[in-house]
């Protein structure tokens, strides 16, 4: 166990699909993350500011504020600009992918995504300072 692992990572999940929220919450909590849920972009933006999570999992197609616009506003706010963000989307075109990277995504996963990949990415966050650190 390294020092970084000693602090529990907080993850904010923003998705309008209740079942996706449900299985992500369950799986991430069982993988030792502290999970906060948001049902839409506006709630997600507010929670990102108040909770200051270590990572955000953000759905792209949501009613109200979509994931791309939420991501941009997070990047514009100095308080949230550095939070790693994983975009989750059912959009697969190059154009959509580019829009995601351009908005400042750290990782981009198309639905249906591999939960193991997602967790591996989340666990790698913050470990770059310690090259010897390894995942579980």
């Amino acid at each position, binding site marked *: 166990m390294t020092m970084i692992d000693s602090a529990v990572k907080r993850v904010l999940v923003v998705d*309008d*699909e*209740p*079942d*996706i929220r*449900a*299985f*992500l919450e*369950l*799986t991430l909590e*069982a*993988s030792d993350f502290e999970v906060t849920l948001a*049902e*839409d972009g506006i709630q997600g933006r507010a929670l990102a500011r108040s909770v200051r999570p270590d990572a955000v999992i953000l759905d792209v*197609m*949501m*009613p109200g504020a979509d994931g791309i616009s939420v991501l941009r506003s997070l990047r514009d706010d100095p308080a949230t600009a550095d939070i790693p963000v994983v975009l*989750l989307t*059912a*959009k*697969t*075109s190059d154009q959509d992918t580019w829009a995601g990277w351009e908005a400042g995504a750290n990782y981009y996963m*198309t*639905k*249906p*995504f*591999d*939960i*193991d990949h997602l*967790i591996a990415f989340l666990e790698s966050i913050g470990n770059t300072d310690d090259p010897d650190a390894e995942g579980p």
Partner: protein
Amino acid sequence: MSRRIAALAIAQGLVAVVVAAAFPDGASALGVRPEVVAVGGCGFGIIGSLTMHIELRRHAHAVTIVEAALVAALFHLHPMEVVAAAMAGELLACVVRRQRVLQLAFNVTAAAATTSLAAAVFTALPGGDPLDARSWPSAFLAAGCYGVASHTSTSAVLAIVERRRFRHLFTLSFAPSAVATGVSASIGVLVVMQAAINLAAVLVVAPIVAVMVHETQRLAAHRADHLRFKRLYAASARTGRLVTQFEAMATLADEARSLVTGAAAVCCATDRTGRWHGIVVGDEGNRLASDQEVEAALRLRDAAPSGELTGDGVPRLLSRLAAPVESLVFAASAEGAAAPLVIAVARQLPGSRDEARAEVLTAFAGHAALTLANAALYADVEDALAHEVDLNRQKDDFVAAVSHELRTPLTSMIGSVASIRRLGEKLTPDKQSMLIEVALRQGARLKQLIEDLLLLSSIEGAPKVSRDIDEVDLAAMATDVASELGGPRPDAPAVAITFHAGELPPVRTDEGKLRQIVTNLVENARKYAPDSDIEIVAGAAAGVVTVDVIDHGEGISPADRDRVFERFTQLDQSATRAKGGTGLGLYLCRRLAGVLGGSLELSEAPGGGCRFTLTILADVTTIDLQASEADRSEPCTLVHA
């Protein structure tokens, strides 16, 4: 314009009086012999009406050999008699041509002024004996004076009438008129010399003059024909590439107008529905023709395929195209032409019985029909292309939407199962069963989506939707649906679904499709108004049966009512997804209603909530399915991949 012409006439009259006063033995009319004036007047009149045509520098000019008569008169008559005879001749010509008073006044004063100038010059110079060569220059000078004065006067009046520059007109035809004056004066001197020897010798000149006049007139007619067809080809070439119908009609009218030297023109043609429209082109620009004007033009066509009407023959409505209208030339496209059309041109220049104009316009109408047919064809192709592009775009949108809709439930399914595998023993039994529930629920949603897509494909993709038509007991079917769907659900309590119906006629339709619509509508009501009771109300009207599905939930705002029938439109997406909607239900219902020869509309229920009204034919076999589906012109957008 009239005032300026009148002023010109008065000025000419004054010139004549002043010049005549300077005649050696005064302006006294006492010595004027009436019989001489009468004979001289006839001579001037006849010779003045022998128009010849001279072509110089690509312009044709009409000239007369009236100077010949003038020279002869100067040698033999008293100056005052010359002036009087010239005036009488002009008067005669004007009366024969039925000219207006103003024109007559102008022409007669012009004759007085020009001949008096010539007479004054002739009397001031030596001469009098035609056989004495010294008198010939005097005759030529007098004729030249007459020619210049006459040309000045003509140019002045043309400048006023045609609103062109005097200097331009004067120089334009100065040379041909000088040539004509020289030739005529020579003829005059020749005649006078002949007459001095023997009066009968004059007759020797007559055939030469007659042939000359005839020949120039024939040439002029040829030239006019040639020019007309040259203009026709040029106009046809200019209009060949027109692509929009109204632009084509306006340009065709404009070309027709200049082709037959008209002031205004109307071009009438049919649009794609076969309705006639017209466009009027005049000096004030273009405008749409009124229905009455179009009808008047069509009546012309019904009377004759082409022609030229003059004076009172011009229909009153069309005579207003350009006031005052002297004649109306019209032509219609030949029967069976690519596009029917009628062109009528209102002219302010005098008409004639000469059929050349109507003939040219007919030829142009034939070309114009092709142009219009071309434009229509172009529009069709453009529409088809736009439709195709639109279809492609819709197809792309649809594929993207389907992809999204399929991926979403799949994500939860795979994610849940992957979580169970990943966490294994770490999961408590209740968490495990929750994940299994998610997978099953999303699997069911996926199944529903696939079924909806297959149904959609069968409606939109198939060339002909199959229908299983039979006698349907609507009341039994609706009661059945009501009892089936009213029970309690894991996430909602039981609700009362009631069915009311008045007198129902026997219904012949596709029971499976009808049941699907009603079931979908009731399911929809249960989803969006979970706590509300639902009513199914059936009724009948002339040839149709209606089924209303009414709930008393929150309802849908009028602005959003049409959107609920669009594919993958979920007004409140989170609510829909929570309940496993596919976003295709209502869209499918409406399409199915179309297959049953009916429609599906949404309105507000009395007391709030939604009322979906399904209207279908009581006997669906009374319509041709292909036709009704074609009328909807809904694009077929489902891709078979």
